């Protein structure tokens, strides 16, 4: 591009334009180089800081990391499946490491739910319940945050700030406060994930509402419909497919969130996983990893299929929805 200058015979005006163009390209390049250098310096500073702050240094611990991966193996590959399905282990010696059976949940004398599957059910249920609770409240709130329905007055401001605070409030604090009151259990996790869901879904919902076509609303207004009727018959039918799609996407995210919250006191598979990897129970750890992986992939695929049916490919605007 910079080769244009080698052609001689430009008019004086052309020369001026070329000079301006070159100086602009130059400024742009200088800015780019400064920005890239700045990011690289920040990256290395941050990395060396992280390394210094860590209890084990990266290069010192790297061999241990590989040793850990190499040695963290079950005694026999089928142990993983025995742990997964709560079957008795041939290595059982009374220790918790090989005890896969005592925590199984017996529904009848012979039919039981393996412990890990049960914990996984708890986690998935936490995610679904939180999405239902959070989604319903976000549904109610979102109409009060949309400029085209309530204007830009104080109502919108208050509702939006509430949503922002719910979104940014650290989930572990909600979970921790409720754990202190209710003792460890799934209610803390449900409350924490629900609150975050209100904020996250509320934001996505009101953006959908603001993009809705206002002609049906006008039509209803012209026949004297109340505000509630206008929302119910003009807005809701338009936005519902997008709402459901976002709620499904949120369910995917909430499964992951409830796993993590579980590990810090919410119960469910997250806590079981933290304990088993902390105590070096290789077979149980791998069993949980496989179960979680399969569940998350299955839920992602199912909700992806459902979303594609509801609103088509536009629902795969991934980054926007993951906030």
């Amino acid at each position, binding site marked *: 591009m910079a080769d244009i200058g080698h052609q001689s015979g430009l008019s004086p005006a052309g020369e001026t334009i070329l000079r301006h163009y070159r100086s602009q390209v130059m400024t742009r390049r200088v800015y780019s180089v400064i920005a890239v250098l700045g990011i690289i310096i920040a990256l290395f500073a941050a990395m060396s800081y992280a390394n210094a702050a860590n209890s084990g240094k990266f290069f010192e611990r790297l061999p241990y990391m590989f040793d850990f991966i190499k040695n963290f193996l079950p005694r026999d590959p089928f142990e993983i499946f025995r742990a997964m399905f709560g079957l008795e282990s041939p290595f059982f010696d009374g220790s918790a490491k090989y005890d896969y059976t005592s925590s199984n949940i017996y529904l009848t004398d012979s039919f039981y739910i393996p412990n890990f599957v049960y914990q996984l059910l708890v986690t998935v249920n936490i995610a679904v319940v939180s999405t239902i609770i959070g989604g319903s409240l976000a549904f109610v709130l979102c109409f009060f945050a949309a400029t085209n329905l309530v204007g830009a007055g104080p109502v919108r401001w208050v509702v939006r700030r509430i949503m922002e605070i719910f979104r940014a409030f650290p989930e572990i604090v909600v979970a921790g406060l409720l754990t202190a009151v209710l003792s460890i259990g799934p209610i803390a996790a449900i409350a924490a994930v629900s609150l975050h869901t209100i904020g996250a879904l509320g934001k996505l919902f009101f953006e959908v509402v603001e993009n809705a076509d206002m002609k049906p609303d006008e039509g209803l207004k012209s026949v004297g419909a109340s505000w509630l009727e206008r929302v119910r018959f003009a807005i809701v039918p338009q936005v519902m497919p997008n709402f459901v799609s976002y709620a499904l996407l949120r369910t995917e995210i909430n499964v992951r969130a409830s796993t*993590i919250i579980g590990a810090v006191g919410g119960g469910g598979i997250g806590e079981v*996983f933290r304990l088993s990897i902390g105590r070096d129970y290789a077979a149980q750890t791998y069993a949980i990893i496989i179960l979680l992986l399969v569940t998350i992939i299955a839920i992602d695929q199912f909700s992806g299929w459902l979303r594609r049916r509801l609103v088509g490919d536009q629902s795969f605007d991934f980054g926007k929805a993951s906030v």
Partner: protein
Amino acid sequence: MSAISAAERARLENKFPEVFKTSFFKRHGLVFGIALTLAYLVFCWFFFNVGPALSNGKWDRASIYVQDWFSWRAQPRLRFGEDGVVTPQWSSRAQYPANATIDWLTPNADGSMTVTFGSQADRLDITTQQVDVYLNGEVWPVTITADAALAPEGAPAAIQQDRQKVVVDFGFEGQAEIRANQVAVQRRFFGWANFLYDPKSPLWGHDLFSTIGLILSGDRINPEMSNASYVLDQWLNNQAWQHGDILVKLLQTLVMAFVGTLLATLLAFPLAFIAARTITPNRAANWGMKRFFDFIRSVDMLIWALFFTRGFGPGPIPGIAAIFLTDTGALGKVYAEALENVDDKQREGMKSVGASPAAVNRYGVVPQVAPVFVSQSLYFWESNTRSATVIGAVGAGGIGLKLLEAMGTNSDWDKVAYMVLLILFVVFLFDNLSNAIRSRLIGPGAH
């Protein structure tokens, strides 16, 4: 309105079957959906034992914990000495230095002690023989015997006899437990105690304005350093609030999110070119790369975090690794989708002038996708600032672990509130920062 004839009605019904003869599902789907959801919620109520858990909850403590967010308690024990002298005894977490004069806790000449709860009308006059409880100006004498404190007859509900002791409730201002050998006082005040300096600091007692005065004044308190750096040093090393430690932990969390997202961006960028159908015409490579993205994305961030905590020990490295791996998968997927949607004309233009494959991608593809890529990475950076807090709590360190420790003691809720405010502030700051960068890149309103 006039009624229509039967024939007209039949004609309309036949003409618009989609209006008058909708499917059963369409007519009653909403009701069924709501009924199913409610049934599911009822099931979960029992599945999670919500009822018993709520009724066994320590709700009286909940109100104390919530009050601790914005107020603090001074908790001296006023011991009865043999000689009739009442002496206050403080725990190691006392908010006052030794021998400080406290305006609500005044010793009297005869060895007795007066504790005021907001005004002279609400106070305790404590001698070793008898405690006079003043409630709204009315006096209720509590007599101390050898092994018990006894509430007077006809005392109001705020004065309760609880076995050997008498509990007096002054509402928000505090409460007192009168026993045979001591009075345990709990006095509550708005605000955070000793937020600037701890009681051991020579600067204790200075508020914000007098601190500014100190910084501006010429006389050095500590001859070795200037007043400004002395004040900063005393503030950062505040034993009660640990400002220095909290800020360092917050920085660790931010570093986790920043490095993790940036490394993920740097790795996902080239890999996405392999995964995109339109760029790399090799189906096996596309498929393999996409499944690889799916795999590392689906292994939960928790699993990566705990896994690397085992390997590298607690600290920011496991946090970085967890964010890096999950986001390489997520960003790779998003990037690959963006690459598959690029306009082909620009690539064709580059090809037609005989550009090398690298140049085709550099000038035909990257300018189209770069704003989208940067904007997506910024979104991830923003949300990772939040996830890094939680990831920290499971062992990766940072402010998350600090929060968990503070909550574990059940008495540091003011510190929890402080950290929450810091986190909210940082998240708010990053939100606006990344919004500003994004709108400069792709224009306002495009996100």
